[in-house]
């Protein structure tokens, strides 16, 4: 059932409808149905690392909640490791790990190791495997000196690493991460990302993460899914997302002195000058290296930094671009740069291979992801 053809995580026409009661006046209530998730279908193969992003309230966490068995879908079919999460919550729990970025599940007043001992017993992890996993996680996440420290004394970054270890002690096949780097300093973020890469490479753990940090996605995920208003708007490689959003990064250059705007090779261009400091915009999909090299060659450079595009801005731009394109002949421009990341996920879209999807999947909804044009 969990063969690579069908995917490790499968969603077919999944919907979640909430009934919201709103006060419309004194003692008057209005009932309204809100479609938090609207006929979403996707597949994630075992061992993939996928970013799941979208504006606040787009339906990200609702989807994750359906995948983890917290919420029951209103319609459609969900399978994780062949298990229906809403019906077999406890069996599923043994096979998944969940980290809620802003909510620790560690025991506040007790040493970190105590939380792990609880996981050991609650998940009935065999002793040998527990010890082995603990040793490996402690090493990879640098927790050795923290095990005897009460959780309340840990820094945010230390606690996040502690939480990630707690979620992995029982060897889950899939790890859901909800904003794993939120609020962390640069060093902690790097540690968390490096660990996730290793985990994925070493164990083949499937990772699905929601984030507001575009760097999380850039450094970890070959594939991104964008959700907005409950609908899957994009599913493809990150480069495609940048293209779709026509997003730009900013290079902030500090020169030795005030100079006229730097003459940069197009499409890079100076967007702002303030004394010796200049801001250059360049396409997010391009490397900054050639640009930096060229400036360093010709200008007295003191310092520079690259500012990542804000993820919300990228998504907004992308959604906007799609609005504009709707109805146009979307020929070729986007599909081409799908790059290598796409290969492993080719069969993952209902609609790509109509034969693979159940008949009840509505796949004629007007929300074609851009790359479908070339399918």
């Amino acid at each position, binding site marked *: 059932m969990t063969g690579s053809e069908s995917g490790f995580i499968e969603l077919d026409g999944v919907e*979640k409808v*909430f*009934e919201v009661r709103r006060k419309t006046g004194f003692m008057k209530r209005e009932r309204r149905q809100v479609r938090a998730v609207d006929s979403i279908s996707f597949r994630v193969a075992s061992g993939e690392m996928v970013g799941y992003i979208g504006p606040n309230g787009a339906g990200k966490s*609702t989807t994750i*909640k359906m995948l*983890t*068995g*917290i*919420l*029951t879908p*209103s319609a459609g079919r969900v399978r994780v490791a062949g298990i229906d999460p*809403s019906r077999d*919550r*406890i*069996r599923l*729990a*043994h096979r*998944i790990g*969940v980290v*809620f970025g802003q*909510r620790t*599940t560690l*025991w*506040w*007043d*007790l040493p970190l190791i*105590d939380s792990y001992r*609880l996981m050991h*017993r*609650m*998940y009935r992890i065999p002793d040998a495997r527990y010890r082995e996993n603990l040793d490996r996680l402690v090493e990879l996440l640098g927790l050795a000196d923290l095990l005897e420290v*009460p959780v309340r004394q840990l820094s945010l970054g230390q606690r996040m690493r502690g939480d990630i270890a707690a979620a992995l002690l029982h060897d889950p096949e899939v790890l859901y991460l909800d904003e794993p780097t939120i609020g962390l300093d640069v060093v902690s973020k790097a540690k968390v990302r490096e660990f996730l890469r290793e985990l994925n490479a070493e164990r083949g753990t499937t990772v699905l993460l929601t984030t507001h940090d575009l760097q999380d996605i850039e450094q970890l995920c070959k594939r991104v899914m964008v959700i907005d208003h409950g609908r899957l708007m994009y599913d493809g490689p990150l480069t495609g997302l940048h293209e779709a959003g026509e997003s730009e990064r900013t290079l902030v250059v500090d020169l030795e002195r005030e100079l006229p705007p730097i003459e940069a090779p197009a499409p890079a261009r100076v967007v702002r000058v303030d004394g010796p400091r200049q801001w250059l915009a360049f396409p997010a999909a391009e490397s900054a290296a050639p640009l930096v090299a060229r400036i360093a060659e010709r200008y007295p450079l003191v310092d520079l930094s690259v500012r990542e595009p804000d993820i919300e801005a990228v998504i907004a731009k992308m959604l906007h671009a799609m609005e504009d394109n709707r109805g146009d002949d979307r020929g070729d421009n986007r599909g081409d740069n799908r790059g290598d990341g796409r290969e492993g996920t080719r069969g993952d879209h209902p609609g790509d291979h109509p034969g693979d999807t159940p008949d009840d999947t509505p796949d004629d909804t007007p929300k074609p992801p851009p790359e479908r044009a070339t399918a």
Partner: protein
Amino acid sequence: MGERGALAEGVRAYRLIAGMWVRSSMTYRASFAVTVFGNLTVTGLDFVGILLMFSQVDSLGGWSLPEVAFLYGLSVTSFGIADLLLGSMETVGSRIRDGSFDTLLVRPAPVLAQVGADRFALRRLGRITQGAVVLGWALVSVDVDWTAAKVLLVPVMVISGAAIFSAVFVAGAAFQIFAQDAAEVQNAFTYGGTTLLQYPPSVFGKDLVRGVTFMVPLAFVNWVPAAHVLGRPYPVALPGWTAYASPLVALACGALAGLAWRTGLRSYRSTGS
């Protein structure tokens, strides 16, 4: 996993989590001592009130002080046990509001057990202790011809009473899933219930007694069986065997509460609120 398996799993998870809370509370030993003492004193005030009343009169509703103390001891001890075991369930509403309820649903253990063990606090032994002391005093002071059946009825009352109050806690928690901010309603049945049962049924109006006997059957915690033990008439006519019916009532309450909880949880998982 059958019902039996689920129960065993639940008890196991409950013990694991409760153990963690006990260890957590022990990290602040001074606070722990203070709260145990505080719990004992606060919960004992009700009995001080009863003593004050009896400093002015010899009987209340026709019942003597040892007889009222008997009711008090049974009500407080059984409520104390339920409060110790499941009292924290009144925080379900706030857990749903702050979102931490979701973290319980991704653990491989029954949610009821996890919520029940949440913030397990040994300080609640304070209430049980003072209730048991009063009960002990009442047992040696009441004027009763003790038969084997009547002696046996005392522990049966305590256990059944604890089960009935536990069912109220579970039902209250289920109610909170639908009305998270209205947690206090539950207090009317839990704290209100144990207060009510500290006084003789003859003190209350017949309608109230009927409601507490047939609708929310708290009367089977102590009133009905205790009236039989003490040889006092019960304000509402009941067949004789009902004096021994508390375990059955407890079972029925438990089943209904379990059903309510299941309904609540299903609703939470389909509405997310």
